[in-house]
Structures are given as structure tokens and as C-alpha cells.
């Protein structure tokens, strides 16, 4: 499905928009570059045959994260000037990023399993779900993850209530 031309075009867009996302100073523009990165990455994943992950990428990273980022900007930013961020050009960050890039490059080029052409078809969504929710499969970890989200939600509610109470007392 994924031929070299398509891959090159898509990956160029991903890399370009990722760089733009980091380099533009308007946070809102950065959000839209992030969106383009996520959608194009979803395109690559789609052409690789992992439909479910591509659509999840679209729903979660492009849809939900994009909307939530804008929502966060909406409730925190009061003037247009606050949307403009300063560029962080710290040396430590550059070293960390290069080190991480080196590590990833080393891991990808040296591990043979990632370069292998798979002979089986990617599992369909139904098989994926059956494995995920089988009683002897991943249902317990899945439920635990859901519990973590619930705890986070309750914590967020509790936290905001506490702040408001403090505001009333002062």
C-alpha cells in the first residue's frame, strides 16, 4: 500500500510541520501545526495498514488534543500578547534532544526486528478487540487504566473546588 513516493511526501510534511510547530511563536499557530503533524502521521499509519491506530490518532491527537489545547488557551489567555511565547534556546534542552535522537536512531538502525517485512496481515479491529477484552487477555490492565482516568477526573474536580473555596474566604 505504502509506496516510497507517498511515504516521502507524507514524512516530509510531518517533519516540516513538526519543526514549524516548535519554531512558530504564536501558540495557536503551533496548535494548528501540531494538528497537521498528527493528521499526516495518521495518514502514514493508515497506508501501513493499521487502520484502527490511524483513526485513533485522528480522533485523539487531531480531534481531542487539538480541541483541548484550544480550550485551554481559551480559558487561560486574556490578551492576544499572551499567545506569543518566547523561544527557549537552552543548551541543556538541545543536548537532551540530540541525545534522545541519537538513542532512537541507534535503536532503530540496530534492531533487526523493526526492519523485517511482516508476512501476516495486520489484525482486524474485531480481533484486536477480542484480544483486548478477553478475560485471560488485557481486560484487567484496560480497566485499571480506565480507573486512572477516573481518579484524574475526580482529582481535577476536587482541586478546582478547593481553589474556589479559598477564594471565597479571602
Amino acid at each position, binding site marked *: 500500500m505504502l*509506496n516510497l513516493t507517498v511515504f516521502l511526501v507524507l514524512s516530509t510534511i510531518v517533519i516540516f510541520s513538526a519543526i514549524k510547530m516548535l519554531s512558530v511563536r504564536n501558540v*495557536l*499557530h503551533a496548535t*494548528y501545526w501540531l*494538528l497537521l503533524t498528527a*493528521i499526516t502521521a495518521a495518514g502514514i499509519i493508515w497506508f501501513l495498514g493499521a*487502520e*484502527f491506530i490511524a*483513526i485513533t490518532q*485522528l*480522533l485523539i491527537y*487531531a*480531534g*481531542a488534543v*487539538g*480541541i*483541548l489545547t*484550544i*480550550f485551554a488557551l*481559551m480559558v487561560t489567555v486574556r490578551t492576544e500578547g499572551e499567545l506569543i511565547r518566547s523561544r527557549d534556546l537552552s543548551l541543556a534542552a538541545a543536548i537532551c534532544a540530540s541525545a534522545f535522537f541519537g538513542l532512537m536512531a541507534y535503536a532503530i538502525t540496530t534492531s533487526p526486528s523493526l526492519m523485517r517485512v511482516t508476512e501476516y496481515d495486520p489484525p*482486524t*479491529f*474485531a480481533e484486536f478487540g477480542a484480544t483486548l477484552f478477553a478475560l485471560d487477555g488485557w481486560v484487567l490492565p484496560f480497566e485499571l487504566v480506565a480507573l486512572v482516568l477516573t481518579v484524574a477526573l475526580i482529582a481535577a474536580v476536587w482541586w478546582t473546588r478547593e481553589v474556589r473555596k479559598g477564594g471565597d474566604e479571602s
Partner: protein
Amino acid sequence: MSTETMSTVGMWSTAFVHVSCILAIMIFNGGITIYMLRKVLGHLHLRLGPTELGPAGIAQLIPDILKLLVKEDRHPNRTDYWLYCLAPAMVFMPVLAAYAALPFSETLIAADIHLGLLMTLGFVSLVPLGVFAAGYASRNKYALIGAMRAIGGSISYEIPLILACVVPVMLAGSLNLREIVLAQQASIWFVIPALPSAIIFFICALMETGQVPFDMAESESELISGFSTEYSAMRFGFMYLAEFSGNFVMAAIMVSLFLGGWTLPFVPDAIAAPIAPVIFVAKCYLIIFCFMVVRGTLSRYRVDQFAALGFKKLIPITLIWTLVFAIGFKVFTMWGGGA
């Protein structure tokens, strides 16, 4: 040419044909919906709607479209230029992509994929981002307020919308819209066992498409069309077209999930099958007609009432109903075997 190049060329040309067909559908749908909107809202308000041009005013469409096409493309001076120019495309493209998985008949689908429903909803959920881009880039406070409301609405209504789809998916055991329709053909329309889901979906679809009780982002009378205030000519035309196409997509999802898609009850398959796309489209316009009746009847919610309805009522009701239904369905299938 090698076979691989041939198949690549074939793939891209098929894709081109599909996209052209969808664009044609979108444009026709735009025309039909504008005319319907005028006539239906007119009669609801005890007036006639357009009457002068052509029989029953149907030729009114031609000057309307011409006006959009030939109008000067002006834009305010201090917009966020690139975002301003791209925003109509950002509203338009996701809706265009959302058509891909709609099953007009058993064979007439642009992209018959396992996760059609999820993909359609995924694309539809990108629309508010384009709306926000339009509102922000216009550098106009009314436009910005409208755009913020669109994002707020998306946050409160996307969850019940997607949860409302869960019940028919459970009944059919598939996320493919075609298979969901086939499952209804084999049993009954899912609107009967899943009526609460259908009602919740209808309400959320009204919200998702920005129809009147929930047209917070547009609010003609308070925000002067909200996010699209600063747009004119064909840029505005694209947003308008995307809005009408959004109506059609939501109506089509509702028809596929709850109203049996291209099938008819009590009509043998041999008669219904040749006119399947006609049945499907007719049902879609019936749903759009219902949207319009609601639109012409109710008045706009206040912003706080709107958020409260989403968060405090629709989400809990949908969660509880889905849970109750899931337990009931599981018990039923364990005892009775097959729904």
C-alpha cells in the same frame, strides 16, 4: 509500466473519481438544502419563501450561487492572513472526507472500511478546529466569541454523540456502517430497541451541525454570524457548503445507525434494492427536514443552559442508558441467544 505502478495509478484515479463524485453530491446537497431551508422555514413561519423565479421559486438558487461565485473576494486588513485563507478549507475538507464511508447502498460506498463509523465521527470532530481558525484569524471579537463557543460546544457534545452510537454498534457487532445497515435488514431498525440513543443522537447532531436551538457559534442575532462574520464571496460559500454537508453527513449517520439505511420495512428486497440510493437519500432529507422543523420552532439556548444541558444532562443520561442497555443486551443474548 510495472504492475505496481499500474496499480498505484489505478488507486489514485479511483480516488480521484470518488472525490469528484462526493464533491458533486456536496454541491447538489447544498442547492437542495438551501431551497428546502427557505421553503420549510418559510411555511413554518406562515410565509411562502421564494416564489418569484421559476416554479415555486426554485430558480432562486441560480442567482444565489452566481452571487457567491462572482462576488469580490475582499478580506479585512489586519487578519491573521494564512489562517484566514486556510480556515474555509479546514472547515470544508473534514466534511468532504466524512462522506467516504457513508453507505448509499450495499455497494455504493466510496471507502468500505471496517471502522467507517469511527472514521466519519473522527473527521466530523475536526470541523470545530476549522471554525475556531476562522474566528480567531478574523481578528473580530464577535467572530472570536462565536469560535470559542464552537470549541465549548464540541467539548460538551462530542461525548454523548459518540456514546449514542455505541448502542447500535453493540446490536450490530460492527463499526462498519454497511454491516450495521445489513444487521438491521436482518432484524429490525435499531430505532426501536435503541430509541433513547436515537433521540440523544438527534439532539447532539443538531448541536454538531450548529442548528438553531444550539447555533451558539453562529448566533445570527447576537454575534452577526459569529465565526463567519468577516468572510464573503466563495470563502463564505465554502463554509456554507460545509455546514449543509455536515447536516447531510449527520443525517446519513443517523439513517444508517437507526433507520435501516437503504432498506424499507415490509418491502421485499427485490423491489427496494434497485432504488437503494434513492431510499437512503430520501431518508436523509427526511431527517434534515426534522432538523429544520426543530430549527424553525425553538429559540436559541443561552450559553450556560447549553453547556449545562450537555454536561449535566446528556452525558450522564447517555452513560446510564448505555450501561443499562449493555447489561440488558448481554443478559438477553445469554438467555435467548441472538437479538
